[in-house]
Protein backbone atom coordinates (compact mmCIF):
# COMPACT_ATOMS: atom_id res chain seq x y z
CA UNK A 1 0.00 0.00 0.00
CA UNK A 2 2.87 2.32 0.91
CA UNK A 3 4.53 1.51 -2.36
CA UNK A 4 1.37 2.23 -4.34
CA UNK A 5 1.11 5.57 -2.58
CA UNK A 6 4.76 6.34 -3.32
CA UNK A 7 4.33 5.61 -7.02
CA UNK A 8 0.95 7.27 -7.43
CA UNK A 9 0.96 10.09 -4.94
CA UNK A 10 0.17 12.67 -7.62
CA UNK A 11 -3.00 10.85 -8.70
CA UNK A 12 -4.09 10.15 -5.14
CA UNK A 13 -3.47 13.75 -4.08
CA UNK A 14 -5.46 15.09 -7.04
CA UNK A 15 -8.29 12.67 -6.33
CA UNK A 16 -8.33 13.77 -2.71
CA UNK A 17 -8.51 17.45 -3.62
CA UNK A 18 -11.25 16.84 -6.17
CA UNK A 19 -13.13 14.75 -3.63
CA UNK A 20 -12.97 17.48 -1.02
CA UNK A 21 -14.16 20.11 -3.46
CA UNK A 22 -16.98 17.97 -4.86
CA UNK A 23 -18.24 17.06 -1.39
CA UNK A 24 -17.93 20.34 0.48
CA UNK A 25 -19.07 22.89 -2.09
CA UNK A 26 -22.56 21.25 -2.12
CA UNK A 27 -22.62 21.34 1.69
CA UNK A 28 -22.02 25.08 1.59
CA UNK A 29 -24.53 25.74 -1.21
CA UNK A 30 -27.09 23.40 0.34
CA UNK A 31 -26.78 25.08 3.73
CA UNK A 32 -27.37 28.52 2.22
CA UNK A 33 -30.45 27.27 0.31
CA UNK A 34 -31.81 25.18 3.18
CA UNK A 35 -31.91 28.02 5.72
CA UNK A 36 -34.65 30.06 4.00
CA UNK A 37 -36.49 26.91 2.90
CA UNK A 38 -36.52 25.58 6.44
CA UNK A 39 -37.70 28.91 7.76
CA UNK A 40 -40.48 28.95 5.18
CA UNK A 41 -41.89 25.72 6.63
CA UNK A 42 -41.91 27.26 10.10
CA UNK A 43 -43.29 30.65 9.09
CA UNK A 44 -46.12 28.98 7.16
CA UNK A 45 -46.86 25.77 9.13
CA UNK A 46 -49.24 24.56 6.45
CA UNK A 47 -46.23 24.07 4.15
CA UNK A 48 -44.37 21.88 6.63
CA UNK A 49 -45.79 18.50 5.64
CA UNK A 50 -45.89 19.00 1.85
CA UNK A 51 -42.29 20.28 1.88
CA UNK A 52 -41.09 17.44 4.11
CA UNK A 53 -42.66 14.91 1.73
CA UNK A 54 -40.91 16.49 -1.26
CA UNK A 55 -37.57 16.29 0.58
CA UNK A 56 -38.22 12.64 1.38
CA UNK A 57 -38.84 11.81 -2.27
CA UNK A 58 -35.79 13.79 -3.45
CA UNK A 59 -33.67 11.85 -0.98
CA UNK A 60 -34.86 8.50 -2.32
CA UNK A 61 -33.62 9.14 -5.87
CA UNK A 62 -30.49 7.02 -6.27
CA UNK A 63 -27.39 9.18 -6.54
CA UNK A 64 -26.21 7.37 -9.66
CA UNK A 65 -29.48 8.18 -11.43
CA UNK A 66 -29.25 11.82 -10.45
CA UNK A 67 -25.60 12.09 -11.55
CA UNK A 68 -26.50 10.62 -14.93
CA UNK A 69 -29.66 12.57 -15.33
CA UNK A 70 -28.71 16.10 -14.46
CA UNK A 71 -26.79 16.69 -17.69
CA UNK A 72 -30.00 16.03 -19.61
CA UNK A 73 -31.94 18.51 -17.47
CA UNK A 74 -29.24 21.14 -17.07
CA UNK A 75 -27.72 20.82 -20.51
CA UNK A 76 -24.25 20.32 -19.01
CA UNK A 77 -21.68 17.85 -20.30
CA UNK A 78 -21.89 14.33 -18.88
CA UNK A 79 -18.34 14.63 -17.56
CA UNK A 80 -18.89 18.04 -15.97
CA UNK A 81 -18.30 18.23 -12.20
CA UNK A 82 -21.29 20.60 -12.05
CA UNK A 83 -23.59 17.56 -12.22
CA UNK A 84 -22.09 16.08 -9.06
CA UNK A 85 -22.18 19.44 -7.27
CA UNK A 86 -25.83 20.05 -8.18
CA UNK A 87 -26.88 16.49 -7.29
CA UNK A 88 -25.20 16.60 -3.89
CA UNK A 89 -26.60 20.08 -3.28
CA UNK A 90 -30.08 18.65 -3.84
CA UNK A 91 -29.44 15.90 -1.26
CA UNK A 92 -28.00 18.41 1.19
CA UNK A 93 -31.02 20.69 0.83
CA UNK A 94 -33.42 17.74 1.18
CA UNK A 95 -31.74 16.76 4.42
CA UNK A 96 -30.97 20.17 5.90
CA UNK A 97 -34.17 22.08 5.10
CA UNK A 98 -36.06 19.60 7.21
CA UNK A 99 -33.54 19.82 10.05
CA UNK A 100 -33.65 23.62 9.99
CA UNK A 101 -37.45 23.52 10.19
CA UNK A 102 -37.38 20.96 13.02
CA UNK A 103 -34.73 22.96 14.86
CA UNK A 104 -36.71 26.20 14.62
CA UNK A 105 -39.91 24.44 15.61
CA UNK A 106 -38.22 23.02 18.70
CA UNK A 107 -37.56 26.51 20.09
CA UNK A 108 -39.58 26.92 23.27
CA UNK A 109 -42.61 29.15 22.58
CA UNK A 110 -42.07 30.85 25.94
CA UNK A 111 -38.63 32.03 24.82
CA UNK A 112 -40.07 33.42 21.60
CA UNK A 113 -42.79 35.25 23.54
CA UNK A 114 -40.23 36.68 25.94
CA UNK A 115 -38.15 37.97 23.03
CA UNK A 116 -41.23 39.49 21.42
CA UNK A 117 -42.17 41.15 24.71
CA UNK A 118 -38.66 42.59 24.95
CA UNK A 119 -39.29 44.35 21.65
CA UNK A 120 -37.55 42.02 19.17
CA UNK A 121 -39.06 42.24 15.71
CA UNK A 122 -39.50 39.10 13.63
CA UNK A 123 -36.23 39.22 11.70
CA UNK A 124 -34.01 40.22 14.61
CA UNK A 125 -35.74 37.66 16.84
CA UNK A 126 -35.07 34.98 14.24
CA UNK A 127 -31.39 35.87 13.89
CA UNK A 128 -30.48 36.55 17.50
CA UNK A 129 -32.85 34.26 19.43
CA UNK A 130 -34.43 31.44 17.41
CA UNK A 131 -31.50 30.51 15.15
CA UNK A 132 -28.93 30.28 17.96
CA UNK A 133 -31.26 28.07 20.00
CA UNK A 134 -31.91 25.85 16.97
CA UNK A 135 -28.20 25.67 16.15
CA UNK A 136 -27.38 22.33 17.85
CA UNK A 137 -30.15 20.58 15.87
CA UNK A 138 -29.16 22.30 12.61
CA UNK A 139 -25.49 21.46 13.08
CA UNK A 140 -26.35 17.82 13.81
CA UNK A 141 -28.06 17.77 10.41
CA UNK A 142 -25.04 19.46 8.84
CA UNK A 143 -22.82 16.69 10.21
CA UNK A 144 -25.00 14.01 8.64
CA UNK A 145 -25.10 15.87 5.31
CA UNK A 146 -21.34 16.43 5.25
CA UNK A 147 -20.44 12.85 6.10
CA UNK A 148 -22.90 11.33 3.63
CA UNK A 149 -21.82 13.74 0.87
CA UNK A 150 -18.20 12.71 1.33
CA UNK A 151 -19.12 9.06 0.90
CA UNK A 152 -21.55 9.73 -1.99
CA UNK A 153 -19.05 11.60 -4.18
CA UNK A 154 -17.32 8.33 -5.03
CA UNK A 155 -20.43 7.04 -6.83
CA UNK A 156 -19.69 9.73 -9.41
CA UNK A 157 -16.71 7.67 -10.54
CA UNK A 158 -19.15 5.38 -12.37
CA UNK A 159 -19.71 8.28 -14.75
CA UNK A 160 -16.06 9.32 -14.80
CA UNK A 161 -15.82 12.01 -12.11
CA UNK A 162 -15.72 11.17 -8.48
CA UNK A 163 -12.59 12.14 -6.58
CA UNK A 164 -11.41 9.17 -4.58
CA UNK A 165 -14.03 7.03 -6.31
CA UNK A 166 -11.73 7.01 -9.32
CA UNK A 167 -9.34 4.92 -7.25
CA UNK A 168 -12.18 2.42 -6.78
CA UNK A 169 -12.96 2.04 -10.48
CA UNK A 170 -9.25 1.94 -11.35
CA UNK A 171 -8.64 -0.83 -8.83
CA UNK A 172 -11.75 -2.68 -9.93
CA UNK A 173 -10.77 -2.60 -13.60
CA UNK A 174 -7.28 -3.87 -12.79
CA UNK A 175 -8.60 -6.26 -10.15
CA UNK A 176 -6.08 -4.70 -7.82
CA UNK A 177 -6.91 -4.05 -4.18
CA UNK A 178 -4.43 -1.33 -3.18
CA UNK A 179 -6.02 1.76 -4.79
CA UNK A 180 -9.50 0.75 -3.59
CA UNK A 181 -8.30 0.28 -0.04
CA UNK A 182 -6.46 3.61 -0.11
CA UNK A 183 -9.56 5.32 -1.49
CA UNK A 184 -11.84 3.84 1.17
CA UNK A 185 -9.47 4.73 4.00
CA UNK A 186 -8.95 8.29 2.77
CA UNK A 187 -12.68 8.79 2.24
CA UNK A 188 -13.50 7.60 5.76
CA UNK A 189 -10.68 9.73 7.23
CA UNK A 190 -11.90 12.78 5.34
CA UNK A 191 -15.41 12.27 6.70
CA UNK A 192 -14.13 11.82 10.24
CA UNK A 193 -12.02 15.00 10.06
CA UNK A 194 -14.88 17.06 8.56
CA UNK A 195 -17.22 15.72 11.25
CA UNK A 196 -14.73 16.59 14.00
CA UNK A 197 -14.33 20.13 12.64
CA UNK A 198 -18.09 20.72 12.76
CA UNK A 199 -18.25 19.36 16.32
CA UNK A 200 -15.44 21.71 17.38
CA UNK A 201 -17.09 24.69 15.69
CA UNK A 202 -20.35 23.79 17.40
CA UNK A 203 -18.64 23.68 20.79
CA UNK A 204 -17.10 27.07 20.14
CA UNK A 205 -20.25 28.85 18.98
CA UNK A 206 -22.81 27.31 21.36
CA UNK A 207 -21.06 27.61 24.75
CA UNK A 208 -24.41 27.70 26.58
CA UNK A 209 -25.21 24.08 25.72
CA UNK A 210 -22.33 22.93 27.91
CA UNK A 211 -23.69 24.56 31.05
CA UNK A 212 -25.50 21.83 32.90
Amino acid at each position, binding site marked *: MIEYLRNNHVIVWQALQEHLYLALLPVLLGFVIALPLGYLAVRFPRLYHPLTNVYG*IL*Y*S*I*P*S*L*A*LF*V*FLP*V*ILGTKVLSPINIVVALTIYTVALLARTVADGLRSVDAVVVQAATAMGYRRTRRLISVELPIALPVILAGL*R*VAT*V*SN*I*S*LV*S*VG*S*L*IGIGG*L*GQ*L*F*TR*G*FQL*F*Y*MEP*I*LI*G*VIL*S*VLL*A*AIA*DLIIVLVQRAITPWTRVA
Partner: protein
Amino acid sequence: MNLSYLFDPAHWDLGVTGSIPELILSHLGYVALALLIGAVIALPVGLYIGHTGKGSFIAINAGNAGRSLPTLGLLMLMVTLLGLGLLPVLIALTVLVIPPILTSSYAGMRNLDHRVVDAARGMGMHPWEVLTKVELPMALPVMMSGFRNAALQVVATATVAASVGLGGLGRLLIDGLAVNDYSRVLAGAIVVAVLAVLVDLFLALIQRWIVSPGLKGLS
Protein backbone atom coordinates in the same frame (compact mmCIF):
# COMPACT_ATOMS: atom_id res chain seq x y z
CA MET B 1 -35.29 12.64 -22.53
CA ASN B 2 -38.48 10.66 -22.86
CA LEU B 3 -40.48 7.92 -21.23
CA SER B 4 -40.55 5.57 -24.22
CA TYR B 5 -38.38 2.91 -22.56
CA LEU B 6 -40.48 2.89 -19.41
CA PHE B 7 -43.79 2.55 -21.23
CA ASP B 8 -42.71 0.10 -23.90
CA PRO B 9 -44.73 -3.08 -23.11
CA ALA B 10 -41.88 -5.22 -24.44
CA HIS B 11 -39.78 -4.11 -21.45
CA TRP B 12 -42.43 -5.32 -19.02
CA ASP B 13 -42.51 -8.93 -20.17
CA LEU B 14 -41.78 -10.98 -17.05
CA GLY B 15 -40.26 -13.94 -18.89
CA VAL B 16 -37.50 -11.96 -20.60
CA THR B 17 -34.15 -11.59 -18.82
CA GLY B 18 -33.38 -7.92 -18.29
CA SER B 19 -37.04 -6.89 -18.40
CA ILE B 20 -38.14 -4.31 -15.86
CA PRO B 21 -40.18 -6.72 -13.66
CA GLU B 22 -37.27 -9.15 -13.58
CA LEU B 23 -34.87 -6.35 -12.56
CA ILE B 24 -37.33 -5.18 -9.89
CA LEU B 25 -37.43 -8.72 -8.48
CA SER B 26 -33.66 -9.12 -8.36
CA HIS B 27 -33.37 -5.59 -6.90
CA LEU B 28 -35.89 -6.42 -4.18
CA GLY B 29 -34.03 -9.68 -3.61
CA TYR B 30 -30.78 -7.85 -2.76
CA VAL B 31 -32.69 -5.37 -0.62
CA ALA B 32 -34.58 -8.03 1.33
CA LEU B 33 -31.50 -10.21 1.88
CA ALA B 34 -29.39 -7.25 3.04
CA LEU B 35 -32.14 -6.07 5.41
CA LEU B 36 -32.66 -9.58 6.76
CA ILE B 37 -28.97 -10.27 7.40
CA GLY B 38 -28.50 -6.73 8.72
CA ALA B 39 -31.42 -7.08 11.12
CA VAL B 40 -30.26 -10.49 12.36
CA ILE B 41 -26.86 -8.98 13.19
CA ALA B 42 -27.82 -5.47 14.34
CA LEU B 43 -31.09 -6.01 16.24
CA PRO B 44 -29.77 -8.25 19.05
CA VAL B 45 -26.65 -6.11 19.46
CA GLY B 46 -28.64 -2.85 19.50
CA LEU B 47 -31.23 -4.23 21.90
CA TYR B 48 -28.55 -5.62 24.20
CA ILE B 49 -26.62 -2.34 24.28
CA GLY B 50 -29.83 -0.37 24.80
CA HIS B 51 -31.08 -2.71 27.52
CA THR B 52 -27.87 -2.89 29.52
CA GLY B 53 -26.30 0.46 28.62
CA LYS B 54 -22.98 -1.36 28.06
CA GLY B 55 -21.09 -0.18 25.02
CA SER B 56 -23.32 2.82 24.25
CA PHE B 57 -20.30 4.37 22.59
CA ILE B 58 -20.46 1.76 19.82
CA ALA B 59 -24.16 2.30 19.14
CA ILE B 60 -23.91 6.08 19.06
CA ASN B 61 -20.93 6.14 16.71
CA ALA B 62 -22.03 3.27 14.48
CA GLY B 63 -24.38 5.60 12.63
CA ASN B 64 -21.75 8.09 11.64
CA ALA B 65 -19.10 5.49 10.90
CA GLY B 66 -21.53 3.63 8.63
CA ARG B 67 -22.50 6.74 6.72
CA SER B 68 -18.88 7.61 6.06
CA LEU B 69 -18.04 4.22 4.47
CA PRO B 70 -18.37 4.59 0.70
CA THR B 71 -20.53 1.64 -0.38
CA LEU B 72 -19.13 1.60 -3.90
CA GLY B 73 -15.57 1.38 -2.56
CA LEU B 74 -16.49 -1.36 -0.12
CA LEU B 75 -18.27 -3.27 -2.89
CA MET B 76 -15.32 -3.08 -5.27
CA LEU B 77 -12.92 -3.97 -2.47
CA MET B 78 -14.98 -7.06 -1.68
CA VAL B 79 -15.08 -8.01 -5.34
CA THR B 80 -11.28 -7.89 -5.62
CA LEU B 81 -11.06 -9.98 -2.45
CA LEU B 82 -13.84 -12.51 -3.06
CA GLY B 83 -14.38 -12.43 -6.79
CA LEU B 84 -17.55 -11.51 -8.69
CA GLY B 85 -20.86 -12.77 -7.37
CA LEU B 86 -23.68 -12.15 -4.96
CA LEU B 87 -21.59 -12.31 -1.78
CA PRO B 88 -19.64 -9.03 -2.20
CA VAL B 89 -22.87 -7.16 -3.01
CA LEU B 90 -24.60 -8.60 0.05
CA ILE B 91 -21.67 -7.70 2.30
CA ALA B 92 -21.54 -4.10 1.05
CA LEU B 93 -25.32 -3.61 1.37
CA THR B 94 -25.48 -5.31 4.77
CA VAL B 95 -22.76 -3.00 6.09
CA LEU B 96 -24.94 -0.14 4.85
CA VAL B 97 -28.09 -1.23 6.72
CA ILE B 98 -26.50 -2.26 10.02
CA PRO B 99 -25.83 1.27 11.42
CA PRO B 100 -29.39 2.67 11.19
CA ILE B 101 -30.91 -0.56 12.57
CA LEU B 102 -28.34 -0.75 15.37
CA THR B 103 -28.66 2.91 16.33
CA SER B 104 -32.45 2.93 16.30
CA SER B 105 -32.87 -0.29 18.28
CA TYR B 106 -30.43 1.12 20.81
CA ALA B 107 -32.25 4.47 20.93
CA GLY B 108 -35.64 2.77 21.20
CA MET B 109 -34.54 0.78 24.24
CA ARG B 110 -32.66 3.67 25.83
CA ASN B 111 -35.47 6.21 25.66
CA LEU B 112 -38.16 4.06 27.25
CA ASP B 113 -40.20 5.52 30.03
CA HIS B 114 -38.48 3.89 32.98
CA ARG B 115 -41.51 4.22 35.19
CA VAL B 116 -43.34 1.79 32.94
CA VAL B 117 -40.49 -0.71 33.10
CA ASP B 118 -40.36 -0.32 36.89
CA ALA B 119 -44.11 -0.83 37.09
CA ALA B 120 -43.81 -4.02 35.02
CA ARG B 121 -41.12 -5.30 37.39
CA GLY B 122 -43.21 -4.29 40.37
CA MET B 123 -46.10 -6.31 39.00
CA GLY B 124 -43.82 -9.33 39.25
CA MET B 125 -43.02 -9.79 35.58
CA HIS B 126 -40.11 -12.05 34.79
CA PRO B 127 -37.18 -10.17 33.11
CA TRP B 128 -37.96 -12.05 29.89
CA GLU B 129 -41.59 -10.90 30.09
CA VAL B 130 -40.47 -7.33 30.80
CA LEU B 131 -38.38 -7.48 27.64
CA THR B 132 -40.91 -9.10 25.33
CA LYS B 133 -44.15 -7.64 26.68
CA VAL B 134 -43.11 -4.13 27.73
CA GLU B 135 -39.73 -2.96 26.48
CA LEU B 136 -39.82 -4.33 22.93
CA PRO B 137 -43.37 -3.19 22.12
CA MET B 138 -42.59 0.28 23.45
CA ALA B 139 -39.31 0.54 21.57
CA LEU B 140 -40.94 -0.65 18.35
CA PRO B 141 -41.91 2.72 16.79
CA VAL B 142 -38.34 4.04 17.03
CA MET B 143 -36.93 0.73 15.83
CA MET B 144 -39.27 0.71 12.86
CA SER B 145 -38.28 4.23 11.85
CA GLY B 146 -34.65 3.13 11.80
CA PHE B 147 -35.54 0.07 9.79
CA ARG B 148 -37.50 2.16 7.27
CA ASN B 149 -34.56 4.51 6.99
CA ALA B 150 -32.28 1.55 6.28
CA ALA B 151 -34.72 0.19 3.69
CA LEU B 152 -34.91 3.54 1.90
CA GLN B 153 -31.13 3.78 1.70
CA VAL B 154 -30.60 0.24 0.53
CA VAL B 155 -33.29 0.46 -2.19
CA ALA B 156 -31.49 3.47 -3.65
CA THR B 157 -28.00 2.07 -3.14
CA ALA B 158 -28.63 -1.47 -4.42
CA THR B 159 -28.23 0.09 -7.89
CA VAL B 160 -24.46 -0.19 -7.45
CA ALA B 161 -24.76 -3.98 -7.78
CA ALA B 162 -24.95 -3.45 -11.53
CA SER B 163 -21.51 -1.83 -11.55
CA VAL B 164 -19.96 -5.20 -10.68
CA GLY B 165 -21.97 -7.12 -13.22
CA LEU B 166 -24.99 -8.15 -11.18
CA GLY B 167 -28.67 -7.41 -11.84
CA GLY B 168 -31.13 -5.15 -10.15
CA LEU B 169 -32.44 -1.83 -11.39
CA GLY B 170 -28.92 -0.43 -11.59
CA ARG B 171 -28.67 -2.36 -14.87
CA LEU B 172 -30.99 0.19 -16.50
CA LEU B 173 -28.73 3.02 -15.29
CA ILE B 174 -25.37 1.43 -16.14
CA ASP B 175 -26.40 -0.13 -19.47
CA GLY B 176 -28.40 2.92 -20.48
CA LEU B 177 -25.40 5.11 -19.78
CA ALA B 178 -23.05 2.80 -21.67
CA VAL B 179 -25.08 3.08 -24.87
CA ASN B 180 -26.23 6.69 -24.30
CA ASP B 181 -29.85 5.57 -24.00
CA TYR B 182 -31.17 8.21 -21.63
CA SER B 183 -34.72 6.95 -21.92
CA ARG B 184 -33.53 3.74 -20.26
CA VAL B 185 -31.65 5.66 -17.56
CA LEU B 186 -34.75 7.72 -16.83
CA ALA B 187 -36.83 4.54 -16.60
CA GLY B 188 -34.34 3.16 -14.06
CA ALA B 189 -34.34 6.33 -11.98
CA ILE B 190 -38.13 6.51 -11.90
CA VAL B 191 -38.65 2.84 -11.08
CA VAL B 192 -36.11 3.00 -8.22
CA ALA B 193 -37.67 6.15 -6.73
CA VAL B 194 -41.19 4.66 -6.99
CA LEU B 195 -39.96 1.39 -5.50
CA ALA B 196 -38.41 3.28 -2.57
CA VAL B 197 -41.71 5.03 -1.87
CA LEU B 198 -43.68 1.76 -2.16
CA VAL B 199 -41.31 -0.14 0.14
CA ASP B 200 -41.59 2.67 2.69
CA LEU B 201 -45.40 2.62 2.45
CA PHE B 202 -45.40 -1.15 2.88
CA LEU B 203 -43.22 -0.87 5.99
CA ALA B 204 -45.44 1.95 7.30
CA LEU B 205 -48.42 -0.39 6.98
CA ILE B 206 -46.57 -3.14 8.85
CA GLN B 207 -45.66 -0.59 11.51
CA ARG B 208 -49.30 0.38 11.95
CA TRP B 209 -50.22 -3.24 12.21
CA ILE B 210 -47.60 -4.32 14.78
CA VAL B 211 -47.32 -1.22 16.98
CA SER B 212 -49.53 -1.46 20.03
CA PRO B 213 -52.64 0.77 19.78
CA GLY B 214 -51.88 2.11 23.25
CA LEU B 215 -48.70 3.78 21.97
CA LYS B 216 -50.19 5.60 19.01
CA GLY B 217 -51.72 8.42 20.99
CA LEU B 218 -48.35 9.26 22.50
CA SER B 219 -46.29 10.21 19.49
